[in-house]
């Protein structure tokens, strides 16, 4: 029996999302909102934003494959219903970030080649570890990998990007705030469902912890590559270009912090969240070192 899902229904999802925070949006943002002219006119800044958006699309494609695969692996109807709504959430995320690439000037015919050019190779390895569990219909490992590790990482990355975009790019910030709202449900499902299952199947712990360690290794490598590649950094703001005082993330001024400082702040935030979340559900965080 999945008690925490007893009140969840597709009706409630409809009232919360399409009729709630997504009401009157177009591809996740206000109908009149556009990318800032300053961004579109600056080739380096635009390329940096294309690179960042490609990573978001790659992550969301992985989440779409994982959540749809988990529908058939779920042992109960309530989890299948939840994962069906999560599948639509993830499909929407793929669509809105793909749309953003077009808004940044990528032609639809060049979509796949642009993704291939800019995708971070470590992100592909991160996805492989998760999708291997999904292929085996391993529900417990799949939910930990998808709804705790992947979604936990996404939650922190989106919050950092949101902090960077809030003042300089309201369109992108609005798109991100809708995805952050979706992530709340996804991490909630992960924690509550696994919190109960791991108590019932404690023998699954070592295998799940190994997967978390492998995914964490690839995640940290992804962050390192992203920040070293990205000039002004993956979560930076246009304030970095015009010298204005920028927004802050974890106490760092995003317009002035070095790439190493930003990478350190994001990694520390995500790892702290992992440790706390895993500890709450009875799993021990495994360091990849």
């Amino acid at each position, binding site marked *: 029996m999945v*008690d*925490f*899902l007893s*009140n*969840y229904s597709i009706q*409630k999802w409809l*009232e*919360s999302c399409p*009729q*709630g*925070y997504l*009401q009157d949006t177009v591809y996740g943002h206000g109908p009149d909102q556009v990318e800032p002219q300053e961004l579109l006119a600056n080739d380096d800044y635009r390329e940096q934003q294309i690179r960042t958006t490609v990573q978001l699309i790659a992550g969301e494609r992985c989440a779409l494959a994982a959540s749809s695969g988990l529908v058939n692996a779920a042992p109960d109807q309530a989890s299948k219903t939840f994962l069906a709504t999560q599948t639509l959430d993830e499909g929407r995320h793929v669509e809105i970030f793909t749309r953003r690439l077009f808004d940044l000037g990528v032609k639809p015919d060049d979509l796949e080649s642009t993704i291939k050019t800019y995708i971070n190779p470590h992100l592909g390895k991160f996805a492989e570890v998760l999708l291997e569990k999904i292929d085996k219909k391993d529900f417990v490992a799949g939910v930990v990998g998808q709804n705790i590790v992947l979604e936990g990482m996404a939650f922190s990355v989106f919050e950092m990007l949101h902090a960077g975009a809030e003042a300089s790019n309201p369109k992108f910030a609005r798109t991100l705030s809708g995805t952050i*709202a979706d992530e*709340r*449900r996804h*991490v*909630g*499902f992960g*924690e*509550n469902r696994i*919190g*109960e299952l791991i*108590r019932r199947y404690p023998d699954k712990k070592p295998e799940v912890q190994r997967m978390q360690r492998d995914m964490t290794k690839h995640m940290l490598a992804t962050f390192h590559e992203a920040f070293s590649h990205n000039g002004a950094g993956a979560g930076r703001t246009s304030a970095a270009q015009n010298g204005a005082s920028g927004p802050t993330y974890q106490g760092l001024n995003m317009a002035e912090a070095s790439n190493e400082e930003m990478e350190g702040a994001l990694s520390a935030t995500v790892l702290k969240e992992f440790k*706390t*979340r895993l500890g*709450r*559900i009875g799993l021990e965080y495994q360091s990849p070192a």
Partner: protein
Amino acid sequence: MTDPLEKPTPGPRPRETFELEETGFNEVPKRFRRFYRRWRGPGDKLGPNEALCPVCKVVIRSTKTLRAGDRVYCMPCMSRLELVEEDGMLVAKVIY
């Protein structure tokens, strides 16, 4: 003069009642929105009728003062929580 032994024994203070207004939180169906608000980060001071969901970082609001032992529900992430007192502060723990 009243005999001190006849005075009522001091029990827990009665719970205050709070009027909940809309906060702009729109991540749950309309009828439940006033029970939640967005958390504004570590400097955000919680009211005596509020608790922070540790899972999704949304502030849960009650019409009454909250106390240790109370159970609350976080609809945005579907977590059921119990309030416990730690170091003089109310902390929400997830019930699995």
